[in-house]
């Protein structure tokens, strides 16, 4: 089937053909035959890189140009939303009937807003969580959606993200019964079941653009699924590294999945030690530049220095402990072929698309803090293996598991390579997760009777797979809880959300968090400090990632806790009564200590050193703290607790910027963060007025503030600058090396 013959709008064909897409891949053909272009609901299950997104593009543009429709595109991760946004951007040159251009919008942030501005967009790309929060705000434009694309729908199986996705789909189908649903999924066992739930047809294929060879390495020999075998050179004692080096020597890239972050880092260090000799001068020249970008991307820490050192040797690690900007840089330079070996934790397999010629699964076990090691699922294995083979660069992709003994080799072949992926199960039936969805169902007017609530949950994937009866008990328990906590009110048959309940639903927090915040606000403490609030939010179930105190720091945290006892808004559990709860509590105190360190201007490196917390975790803690402080602020104003508002507002800002109170006025300037803000302050520029009066030469001479930034500061604050100096600065040459591909 050729693009030119498809029943899609002409300008779309033109854009695709121009970009080199002429012929459809088999899964795309099947999706079209199944009626995707005629508005039929469809589940398309097919491997990574088999072209599922293009089917979504066809449908989306048909909806816009032929039916005046509106599309919402759901992805599980922010990074994926950005990826899709970039892919859809190519269509913004097309004009619609009303002679306006097609507009693509992306919205992934702020959960407490209905984003009315999104109304102007034709395609809205968003995360499942953001879509859920938009539904809670009953954004008006959501009633106009004619097509929903749900990407990576196999994540229904994910304990955290799955339930949100099924609730969002159920709600969208409820508000708009004529909506077309297009669900994209990896190959899974029970596609049919998902299709039945969505009232959809389904297409499932194993087709891949590049041949995938799966095998197990035992000692120096790879045994492939198809019966082939190959010896590899033994260069080190680590088989994963040997595989990677072999691939790099033959001109490919390797991706190694390790069980833990620590293992990923260790492996990367070892690879870097071995790879040097195979790197050529041109590639080293390119890598120097990449390393500089890594160092410039954030505050300098031992982690960014290590990463830069590794990148110079074409190696890097990738895990959730890295900050977003570093992850993005690593992903880009791996895609550009500069980084040759990437070690990663399994989370990468569920994230952005980073194919490599060889995928090595060093450990088929996965480590979860608090649970220990457990074997990965076949579905997870298939996701990792599916990353093997780079379109346009590789003819064959190889995915290799590593065995230590012949028995283990047989086990891996049987249980992973030859095994079928597991069925996907709904993860909705958990009280902690259902709680906020039950409240939202009432608060956002999806149902106003007990029966209506059961009706709604009767439309979920859970109800389709199991029986709504099985969660009636949990729902009833939740209703009682939110009633007792005054989030809902009942009159006869009807159930209404109170102001409190409505706000909790909109703020996108767990009702339990809301109760903790409310109770804390009611408490009359002698004095409320930063620590009081930071600890209180750390105590809510919405704070994450959970920090576990290391055994050597337990005592120090306990001492800190005793010293600051009067400041806590939540009572500490008894150490001897319940040890587990007690240690959990210490973990919350630790989170509060980390946040306190952050707003007292400890450097990132000091935080890493003192708390052994990695930047990625720190940034996520900060994100969550900002959101929970905002919720605290909003609830305090709802309850008329005016006294605390200045405090919460200030703390929110300090957590966002990571500064002491005195820096708040100057870090408002663009280009001034916590580090430069401190430099200005300590040099005597304590207010905007001081900076306005400062001479530009003096600013330029401060460390980390060059002519360019000094000029930018002056543009913002004003003040007098000598004409000659300003003109010289205007002329200040900033050079940029262009790429040949730009011509």
């Amino acid at each position, binding site marked *: 089937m050729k693009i030119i013959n498809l029943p899609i709008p002409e300008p779309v064909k033109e854009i695709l053909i121009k970009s080199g897409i002429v012929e459809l891949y088999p899964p795309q053909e099947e999706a079209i035959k199944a009626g995707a272009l005629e508005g039929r609901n469809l589940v398309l299950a097919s491997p990574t890189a088999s072209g599922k997104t293009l089917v979504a593009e066809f449908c989306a543009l048909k909806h816009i140009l032929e039916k005046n429709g509106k599309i919402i595109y759901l992805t599980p991760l922010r990074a994926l939303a950005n990826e899709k946004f970039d892919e859809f951007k190519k269509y913004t040159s097309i004009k619609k009937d009303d002679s306006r251009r097609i507009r693509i919008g992306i919205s992934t942030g702020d959960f407490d807003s209905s984003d009315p501005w999104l109304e102007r967009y034709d395609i809205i790309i968003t995360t499942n969580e953001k879509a859920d929060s938009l539904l809670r705000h009953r954004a008006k434009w959501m009633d106009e959606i004619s097509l929903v694309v749900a990407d990576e729908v196999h994540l229904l199986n994910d304990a955290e993200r799955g339930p949100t996705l099924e609730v969002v789909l159920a709600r969208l189908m409820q508000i708009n019964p004529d909506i077309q649903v297009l669900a994209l999924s990896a190959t899974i066992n029970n596609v049919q079941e998902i299709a039945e739930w969505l009232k959809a047809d389904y297409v499932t294929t194993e087709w891949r653009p590049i041949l995938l060879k799966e095998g197990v390495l035992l000692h120096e020999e790879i045994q492939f699924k198809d019966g082939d075998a190959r010896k590899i050179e033994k260069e080190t004692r680590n088989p994963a590294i040997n595989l990677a080096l072999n691939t790099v020597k033959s*001109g490919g890239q390797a991706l190694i999945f390790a069980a833990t972050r620590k293992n990923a880092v260790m492996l990367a260090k070892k690879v870097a030690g071995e790879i040097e000799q195979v790197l*050529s001068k041109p590639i080293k020249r390119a890598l120097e530049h990449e390393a500089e970008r890594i160092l410039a991307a954030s505050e300098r820490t031992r982690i960014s220095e290590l990463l830069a050192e590794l990148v110079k040797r074409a190696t890097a690690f990738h895990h959730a402990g890295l900050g977003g900007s570093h992850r993005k840089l690593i992903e880009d330079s791996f895609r550009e072929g500069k980084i040759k070996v990437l070690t990663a934790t399994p989370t990468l397999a569920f994230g952005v698309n980073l194919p490599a010629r060889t995928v090595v699964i060093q450990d088929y076990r996965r480590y979860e803090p608090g649970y220990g090691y457990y074997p990965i699922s076949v579905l997870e294995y298939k996701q990792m293996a599916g990353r093997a083979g780079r379109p*346009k660069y590789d*003819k064959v992709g190889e995915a290799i598991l590593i065995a230590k003994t012949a028995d283990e080799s047989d086990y891996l072949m049987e249980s992973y390579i030859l095994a079928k992926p597991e069925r996907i199960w709904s993860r909705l039936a958990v009280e902690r997760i259902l709680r906020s969805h039950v409240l939202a169902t009432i608060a956002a007017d999806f149902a106003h009777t007990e029966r209506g609530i059961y009706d709604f949950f009767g439309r979920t994937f859970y109800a389709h797979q199991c029986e709504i009866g099985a969660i009636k008990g949990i729902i009833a328990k939740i209703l009682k809880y939110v009633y007792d906590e005054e989030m809902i009110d009942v009159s006869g048959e009807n159930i209404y959300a109170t102001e409190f309940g409505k706000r909790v639903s909109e703020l996108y927090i767990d009702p339990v968090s809301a109760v903790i915040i409310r109770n804390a606000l009611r408490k009359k403490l002698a004095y409320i400090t930063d620590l009081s609030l930071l600890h209180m939010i750390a105590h809510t179930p919405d704070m994450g990632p959970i920090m576990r105190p290391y055994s050597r720091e337990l005592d120090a945290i306990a001492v800190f806790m005793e010293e600051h006892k009067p400041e806590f808004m939540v009572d500490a559990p008894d150490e001897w009564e319940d040890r587990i709860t007690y240690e959990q509590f210490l973990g919350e105190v630790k989170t509060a200590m980390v946040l306190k360190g952050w707003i007292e201007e400890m450097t990132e490196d000091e935080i890493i050193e003192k708390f052994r917390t990695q930047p990625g975790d720190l940034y996520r803690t900060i994100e969550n703290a900002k959101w929970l402080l905002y919720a605290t602020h909003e609830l305090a104003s709802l309850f008329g607790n005016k006294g605390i508002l200045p405090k919460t507002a200030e703390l929110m800002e300090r957590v966002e910027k990571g500064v002491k109170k005195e820096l708040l006025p100057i870090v408002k300037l663009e280009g001034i963060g916590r580090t430069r803000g401190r430099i200005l302050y300590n040099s005597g520029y304590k207010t905007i007025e001081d900076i306005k009066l400062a001479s530009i030469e003096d600013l330029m001479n401060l460390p980390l503030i060059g002519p360019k930034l000094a000029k930018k500061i002056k543009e913002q604050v004003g003040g007098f600058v000598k004409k000659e100096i300003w003109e010289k600065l205007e002329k200040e040459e900033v050079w*940029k090396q*262009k790429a040949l591909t730009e*011509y």
Partner: protein
Amino acid sequence: MFKIKMADAKLLRDMVTAISILVDEATFKIDQKGLKLRAMDPSRVAMVDFEWPKTVFDEYTTTEPTKMCINISEMLKLLKRAGKDEVVELSLDEKTGKLQIKITGKYARNFTMPTLEASEEEVPTPKITFNVKAKATTQGLSQAIEDAQLVSDHVRIEADNEKLVLNAAGDLMGATITLQKGSDALLDLEAKEPSKATFSLSYLSEIIKEASATSDIATLEFSTDMPIKLDFQQAKEGKLTFYLAPRIETE
């Protein structure tokens, strides 16, 4: 399958050295007409366009068009073993997929090395209208670049119908090198309009230094703030051309 032979190993070695400045894995296309390579450096700042018709070789047989990708620095290590006036022969063993390098002279050496998976990426030629065309000796050019390198890591190249000027400005020092039209170094110069562009010296100096070993005369073509094209005239038939993207002033 192919087999090619060259009586002068040095010629091949110099050419591979010139290519190795930019490329670590090189995909050669070999067909009835000859040997070709077009590739960009990993940073995508420069590209090399190389062609040797079969007449350059002393023996050239090929059955069907072939693509062969090799690690260029590995190949260079082997080629460096060849002395002056030794004969070098390259052939691809189809069964093993290995490249054989046979060097004969004082004694016979037979190396094999693996070939890599060829990249399918097509490298397009940048589309540029050039306003300046200058013909210079590679020797003169090398010296001018060396001068500039003493003071800076980038150089501005400027030309009108009279002269070609290299301007290098470092943090503290500066240099201006002028090549007059018709001088020993600058054989010819045509400028449709006066033009200037700035380039990274680390690329420019290596390209000129290594390519000079294969050529005495180079043709430079450029326009204001556009990539430069450096064509190194070959003693026998064939072509060795480099493109280098400029550094642009922003804001």
